[in-house]
């Protein structure tokens, strides 16, 4: 609650009449937007691997796959739903060796040597499933809970539930792959029927991290301030102090102005010490981009941003994890781009004491099939795949759930996206059933008719 109090003071200090009303209005909104119970995590960084990494080649070793490489999947496995194949192709052994790491001894493949160093902080859930073999609908399910477009994204629900902890930056920022957007596109961070204030804001490195942040060329800060002063003077003339919404509009312009200096500062990584930049792989060709975005995520969280979403992959097929053929080349490339930065993010958050309150999620829309496609690739597998959690109250160094001996389907405890979302909301102190919005006569919720938080993740 500290952030609310400091907000109050800051806004009061700058408030003159209208400002106070507006501050009150914004504050009211924030007070309504508060956790339902004591939260473990305050913010979330969601690392999304577009196109779907293969679980059996990263975090879920399947020795049987290599043993029966080239042979058909036993008939007992029945019909297999992929997007382009049906499971009749022979099994494809993993090209990578697995080793055990950390005190927990959790196995990780040779693709992820850096992430492997962090396994004691990570909780792997190996039996998530989604309900579409097609990228976009499955992405919608991971982001919004439904395979259909048109529902608010997780980040929108979280900021709707918790508000922002900073005035100077948007509560929910999104950093897509510079080469292009994921299949699901903007609905992956859209607010759908929630008010527009809850939509994810695109953030990019560089001097203009937010759309329309800077005045156009030739308009300096002084000139903009002058215009803004005129607007605010006019607006005070127009506004009945009782009208909280119009008063809030005055406050929103001040926030916009503040954002003009705070956002560039927040993305200015030149001030980060050399060893930190190096840790994220900034300056190295392979890791520079994703490393920069991971470092930005840490800086956002430090400044009170509630939800950060980063995409690895998007646009041309060659910059996605979608290894329908040439699995080896594809995954070596994509892991090369991301493994070191992801591990650096975890270590950096930890060394700053931020990992305790920051939930980091690594995931994708589905995994990949144990059978081959094009001889050396794998088709989509929504039936059982791995995502992981770290920080924010998560008990690291453990594996939850399992898949069958080939990694085709989850067995035993399988987890639906409703459970995934319920777990995340729980860590943030939000009751999935209390976080609703009335839309067209229905109490819409992220978890629809409810999921079960995966208690083992945090206890």
């Amino acid at each position, binding site marked *: 609650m500290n952030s609310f109090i400091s907000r109050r003071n800051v806004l009061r200090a700058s408030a003159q009449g209208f400002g106070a009303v507006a501050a009150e209005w914004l504050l009211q909104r924030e007070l309504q937007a508060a956790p339902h119970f004591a939260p473990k995590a305050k913010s979330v960084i969601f690392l999304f691997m577009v196109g779907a990494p293969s679980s059996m080649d990263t975090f879920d070793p399947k020795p049987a796959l290599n043993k029966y490489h080239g042979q058909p999947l036993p008939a007992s496995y029945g019909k297999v739903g992929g997007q382009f194949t049906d499971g009749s192709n022979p099994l494809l052994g993993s090209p990578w060796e697995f080793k055990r790491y950390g005190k927990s001894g959790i196995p990780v493949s040779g693709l992820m040597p850096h992430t492997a160093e962090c396994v004691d902080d990570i909780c792997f859930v190996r039996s998530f499933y989604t309900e579409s073999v*097609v990228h976009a609908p499955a992405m919608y399910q991971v982001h919004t809970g439904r395979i259909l477009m*048109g529902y608010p994204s997780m980040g929108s629900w979280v900021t709707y539930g918790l508000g922002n902890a900073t005035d100077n930056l948007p509560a929910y920022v999104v950093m897509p792959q510079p080469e292009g957007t994921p299949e699901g596109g903007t609905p992956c961070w859209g607010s759908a029927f929630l008010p527009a204030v809850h939509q994810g804001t695109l953030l990019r490195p560089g001097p203009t991290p937010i*759309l329309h942040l800077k005045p156009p060329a030739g308009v300096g800060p002084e000139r903009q301030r*002058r215009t803004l002063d005129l607007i605010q*003077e*006019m607006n005070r003339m*127009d506004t009945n102090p009782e009208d909280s919404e119009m008063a809030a509009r005055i406050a929103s312009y001040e926030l916009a102005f503040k954002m003009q200096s705070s956002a560039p500062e927040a993305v200015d990584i030149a001030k980060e010490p050399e060893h930190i930049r190096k840790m994220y792989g900034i300056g190295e060709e392979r890791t520079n981009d994703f490393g920069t975005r991971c470092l930005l995520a840490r800086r956002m969280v430090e400044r009170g941003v509630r939800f950060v979403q980063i995409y690895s992959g998007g*646009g041309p097929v060659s910059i996605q994890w979608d290894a329908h053929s040439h699995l080896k080349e594809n995954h070596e490339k994509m892991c090369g781009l991301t493994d070191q930065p992801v591990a650096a993010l975890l270590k950096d958050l930890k060394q700053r004491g931020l990992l305790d309150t920051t939930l980091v999620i690594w995931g994708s829309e589905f995994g990949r099939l144990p059978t081959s496609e094009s001889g050396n690739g794998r088709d989509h597998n929504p039936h059982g795949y791995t995502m992981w959690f770290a920080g924010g109250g998560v008990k690291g160094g453990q594996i939850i759930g399992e898949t069958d001996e080939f990694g085709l389907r989850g067995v035993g405890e399988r987890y639906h996206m409703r459970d995934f979302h319920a777990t995340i909301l729980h860590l943030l102190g939000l009751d999935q059933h209390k976080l609703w919005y009335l839309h067209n006569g229905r109490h819409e919720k992220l978890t629809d008719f409810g999921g079960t938080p995966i208690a083992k993740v945090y206890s």
Partner: protein
Amino acid sequence: MKRLLVSLLCVSLLGGEPRVDPKEEALVAKRRSYWAFQAPVRVEIPAGVHPIDHLEPAKRPPLELAKLKRRLALDLTGMPPKDVSGSYEAMLERLMASPRYGERWGQKWLDLVRYADTNGYELDAEREHAWRYRDYVIRSFNANKPFQQFLREQIAGDELFPGDKEALVATGFWRAGPRHVVGGNQDEEQNRQEDLIEMTHAVSATFMGLTMNCARCHNHKFDPILQADYYRLQAILAATEFREVQIADGEEAQAADEARKRHEAKLKPIVDEIKAIEKPYREQFRRDKLPTLDQQFREVLEIAKEKRTEEQKRLAKEAERQLSPTWDEVVALIPPELKAKRAGLRKRMHEINLDEPAPPAHAYSVFTVDEARKTHVLKVGDHKHKLQEVEAGLPLVLKRDLGDFALDPRGRRAGLANWLADPENPLVARVFVNRVWQFRMGQGIVKTMNDFGTLGARPSNLKLLDWLATEFVRSGYNVKHIDRLILTSKAYQQQAERRRRMDSDQLRDSILAVSGMLNPKMGGRPVKTPIEPEIYDIIFTEAEPDNLWPLPKDRSEMYRRTVYVLNRRTVRLPMLANFDQPDTMSSCPERATSTHALQGLTMLNSEFMQEQAKAFAGRTGGDVAKANELALGRAPSEAEKRQAREFSKKGGTAEDYHLALLNRNEFIYLP
């Protein structure tokens, strides 16, 4: 099967009334007394009194005339008034007769039916002929088409008015929503179910004001809409399929065909040249890639084509797929100078494509096929878990005589349309007049405009709602009549309790009107307006991203009204999205109003606003009085004149002053 036959026979023998399941009947019987399912009761209005003043007296003093006229113009046309001469009543008539009236109502209706110009989802392809429905809606409101007819055309124009092109276009209603179109293994039944879900929601929310999506999965404890009701409604649509039907006559079609051929002939040399440049690199890619292919593929390619078995053919096809490079893989191999040449050719190709002739006119419509598919109740809405089969029918709680409605697949929608358009239908008139009230007053008499069910809000003034509903029916479903009644009431004309903010469309259109840049042209294919590079970057494509957003050659097209701007479901324009433009994925009965910092940034710094401020300043020649008159519809006060002088003295430019006016609360909030 035998039982089914017997029951069908029973139905026809008994005069077409399907038997009612007593268990279902017991579930809804109690709910029949719910207010929304009762016939509206019309109260007597004393002579010489405005009915609304009698039923909903004003609570606050009247708004002064000048402000009232501004409010009226923004409500009826979506823009500030150009001409405020004459009495309020005279202005009201003038504005109602203006084509802007239908554009404003059109947007409202398009929000409800979640109209957009694209499919949505990852490919989000543009729908070539969808805009004709948009224009149909605007035309209908401008012509004051009786709502009854408007409804019947949209629900079953093809069945009720065969041969009527306008009515066929109207059935685009069923297809206004999103649709998932994608390649690969498809679950046809799931796709069909998704279409049916969209259609069922559309008709129940828009016309019946009932939220039926809860009933898709289960019977709700308090809701009188049964799960079987939901699937009975789906069964009405069981023979309905999507189809583009040509409405161009032979001559027009031939002309379009010839234009297309000429266009393709113009393109061909350029396309050929690009292909010639790429050819060696495509071959190089193939040569390099071939050895990396799995052995089985290499082997199969060595077998002569005609000698391949079926399995080998499949493998060969797969091998070819792997050997064909994606655009970026080709471009990566081309040396710089050729790459530049290729880019130039592609640019030229895109330029020529700006003149791509329109295909012959089609209706983006629905079609009734002879054979209806069977409809089952689905366990928790899952098409893989079919429960009992159901026949076409209406919600039991509202059921009246349906005739042989359920039996003939051809004509089920007509039956639905006639039932909805029946003056005895307790919901349709109420739901629509409530929308008119909400549109003009900012809040519905029933606050949940799309949900008149037991989970929705109760009417704040049932007498008023019922009087308006009965008046609507009596007037022959005359929309302008109801609109006029509301707009001439003291309740409308009183001072606002909370001022309403312009919605995203009013805002953009008003800015264009004030700056003088508005292009008032009506109708036609949707237009693209400039987008920011950041937005261009997030357009999803796996193709070469060099022509994803071609702007019209005629630049004045970019200043058309917002209702004509291409509405792409996955590419939201920041200015509109920031001001709560609906996402077009579900019915939007009422725009949200959020207030946040990104709005300020867009309103100050976007290229659009800079351009508009400049045009506005150019239009006034920097004259403060004129600027205030145009933006706010009034002369500046002494204090405001002083303020403008001070601003200028401090170095403020005319453009900035005009920009400030467009950012002003007085401009953005309705009086």
